[in-house]
C-alpha cells in the first residue's frame, strides 16, 4: 500500500480539502483506499476508513507541529504540503521545506500553493517561491468559491463544476499522485 501524506504544521492551508478531493478521485477511479484522519478537528467530507485491500492510504495530519512528523514523512511514498500565500505562511513553509529536503529526489514532494488570486500578493509569493526554491515541485490551486460550494454539498469540485479552474487544477494534483504512485483505474 502506498501512503500519501498531506502535512503542514500550519492550520487552514487546505490539507483536508486536498485529502477529500484525492478520496473523491480514488472513488471515481475505483481505486481502493484507506483514509486516516490524524487531525481530530474533523472537517473531512469522507469518513475516515480502513480498507484491507487498499492500494493507497491518504493521511490527513493536524495543523500543528507533531513530534511524529518525521516518522510519518519517512513512511510516506508521496508528501503533499499545501500552503497559503502570505507572509504569515512563510516561516512554517520554510520549516516544511527544511524537513523535506532529505527526500528530494528520493520520493515525490509536492508543494501546493493554495488560494491563488489576482491580487499581487499571491503573484509576488509565487515569484518569490520560484526564485528561492526553483528545484521544488509545485502546483497551484485558485481561490475558487466552487470549493466551498462543493464542500457544503459534500461533493467534489469536479462533480459541482467540472469546467472550473479549481477542478482542472485539482485534477492535475490528483493526476500527479496517481502517476507518481503508478495507480491504475478499476484496480480490482
Amino acid at each position, binding site marked *: 500500500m502506498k501512503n500519501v501524506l498531506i502535512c503542514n504544521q500550519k492550520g487552514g492551508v487546505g490539507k483536508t480539502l486536498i485529502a477529500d478531493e484525492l478520496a473523491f478521485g480514488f472513488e471515481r477511479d475505483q481505486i481502493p483506499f*484507506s483514509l486516516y484522519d490524524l487531525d481530530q478537528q474533523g472537517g473531512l467530507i469522507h469518513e*475516515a476508513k480502513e480498507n484491507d485491500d487498499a492500494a493507497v492510504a491518504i493521511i490527513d495530519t493536524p495543523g500543528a507541529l507533531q513530534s511524529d512528523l518525521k516518522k510519518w514523512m519517512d513512511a510516506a511514498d508521496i508528501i503533499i504540503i499545501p500552503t497559503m500565500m502570505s507572509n504569515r505562511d512563510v516561516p512554517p513553509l520554510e520549516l516544511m521545506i527544511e524537513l523535506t529536503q532529505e527526500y528530494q529526489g528520493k520520493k515525490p514532494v509536492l508543494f501546493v500553493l493554495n488560494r491563488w488570486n489576482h491580487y499581487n500578493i499571491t503573484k509576488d509569493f509565487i515569484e518569490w517561491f520560484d526564485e528561492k526554491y526553483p528545484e521544488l515541485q509545485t502546483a497551484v490551486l485558485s481561490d475558487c468559491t466552487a470549493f466551498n460550494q462543493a464542500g457544503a454539498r459534500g461533493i467534489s469540485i469536479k462533480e459541482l463544476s467540472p469546467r472550473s479552474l479549481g477542478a482542472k487544477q485539482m485534477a492535475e494534483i490528483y493526476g500527479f499522485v496517481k502517476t507518481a504512485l503508478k495507480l491504475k483505474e478499476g484496480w480490482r
Partner: protein
Amino acid sequence: MADTMFSRESAKRQKEELKKHADVGHAEAAQTEKKINVNFSLSPASKEKMHAKAKEMGISASSLLQLWINEHC
C-alpha cells in the same frame, strides 16, 4: 483490519479525542460523532449495479448509499 503505523496512530488519536470530549462533559456527543467503519457484503452483481448507478448519477458509491439510507431508512 490493516495494521500499519497510520492505522495505529489514527486509532490512538480517536481514543484520545474521545477522552478529551469525556473530560469536558461531552462524552455522548463524542460517541455520536465517532466515525464508524462499516463492513458489509454485496454480491458481485449488486456491487457492479451500485457502481454503475453511482457512475450514471455522477456521484460516488458512498454518496449513493447515503442517498439510499436517507430515503429508505
